[in-house]
């Protein structure tokens, strides 16, 4: 495996660095060079008289069990992350975030009225629908574009997706409870505060205080 060393004359002229120094050298080269390097390429970079294979043997030994390792790629060498630590390179964090009121309302309108145009959504909500809201729902793959409406301007329509049904555990959008059922379920408060727009979400939830009083 050893490289045929240079002629003895040359060797005596150029004193090769100690093997520990050679090891340092290939460590630095292997680190800095983008591609895996063959022994010949490494040797070419080392000073005269160096023994790249021997230095490499030391280096590989040194990195055994470390967080990075010297691996052989074909007939070349490279530093690689230890396989058991690969997961550290990919950090996944999931941030749960509540869908904004505008987004959930827009989604609800699409679900209940599909196919529905943006103008119709705005009419039902009574406020403009921001591009961001629609984009987010599209990105979430909860709504998608339906057929264009055959009316002047041929506006696009929105419909809910399979992913939407999947997420909300529905067989089809038709399974969504109607207004009557919503009311029966107590979800439709028929006595909203005036200016219901401004009331925060929490107001729509049942006030737990009351039922608590009567339970147990």
């Amino acid at each position, binding site marked *: 495996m050893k490289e045929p060393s240079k002629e003895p004359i040359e060797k005596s002229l150029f004193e090769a660095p100690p093997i520990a120094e050679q090891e340092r050298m290939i460590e630095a080269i292997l680190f800095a060079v983008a591609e895996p390097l063959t022994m010949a390429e490494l040797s070419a970079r080392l000073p005269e008289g160096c023994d790249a294979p021997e230095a490499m043997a030391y280096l590989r030994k040194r990195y055994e069990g470390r967080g990075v390792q010297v691996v052989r790629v074909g007939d070349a060498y490279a530093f690689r992350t230890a396989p058991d630590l690969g997961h550290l390179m990919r950090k996944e964090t999931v941030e749960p975030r509540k869908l904004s009121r505008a987004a959930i309302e827009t989604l*609800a309108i699409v679900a209940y009225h599909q196919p529905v145009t943006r103008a119709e959504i705005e009419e039902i909500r009574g406020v403009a629908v921001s591009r961001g809201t629609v984009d987010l729902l599209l990105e979430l793959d909860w709504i998608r574009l339906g057929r264009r409406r055959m009316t002047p301007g041929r506006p696009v329509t929105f419909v809910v997706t399979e992913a939407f049904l999947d*997420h909300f555990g529905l067989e089809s959008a038709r399974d969504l409870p109607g207004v009557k059922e919503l009311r029966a379920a107590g979800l*439709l408060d028929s006595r909203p505060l005036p200016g*219901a*727009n401004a009331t925060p979400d929490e107001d729509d939830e049942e006030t737990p205080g009351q039922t608590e009083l009567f339970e147990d």
Partner: protein
Amino acid sequence: MAPTDDLFADPPEEAFLVDVEGFEGPLDLLLTLSRSQKVDLRRVSVLGLAEQYLAFVEKARALRIELAADYLVMAAWLAYLKSRLLLPPDPTEEGPSAEDLALHLAFQLERLQAMREAAARLMARDQKGRDFFPRGAPEALAHLRTVKWEASLLDLMRAYARIRTKDEFRPYAFDRHNVYTMEQALDRMRGLIGYMGAWADLTSFLPEGWGEDPSRRRSAMAAHFAAILEMAKRGQVDLRQGDIFAPIYLKRKAE
């Protein structure tokens, strides 16, 4: 490194003038001139320097070399400083003394010189990509920040309910506009029945303006249907329907 630096062992003035472009402004020129005094910058004779500078500007003028405005501004200021330095201090004059001004100029030169040297030392440092290197084949550290949007079916239904509720919330008023009552239909049918001959489709009896709009049509249809059922019960009409959902026909009952 700057070609001008070499000129100062024995400054040949011609070279000076040719090289005026090489100066980075009047302060740089002053710093170069001050080196010809061969003293520590702190001991430089500001008066001597002012004279050197003014001589330089004179020479340039004689050679019809155009100097940038800031060189001339500096020349004017140095001429002023020179006169102040030469004259005995005027006790009535306000503001900084000529010595203060001269000291400040010396400070500026020393500071510029210091920054020059600092810059040279900075550039002489080991530099990344030349003397030391980062990882050649960096791996991407992925940070997948997935936002999981949370919305339950309940949220969805509540949202919808909220919207609908918003619509419904208005003072109670019966929607007479789109409702046709059975009483109205009965009155109407009683009036019409006298003219009836053969079997006729119930829909042909719907009043004008109630056949188009679906909700009005539905209401009128229901009212008329209820009305004719009542009339059939009273034995005033016969009813017939071929099939489920088929048109309903009626005919005045033969007496």
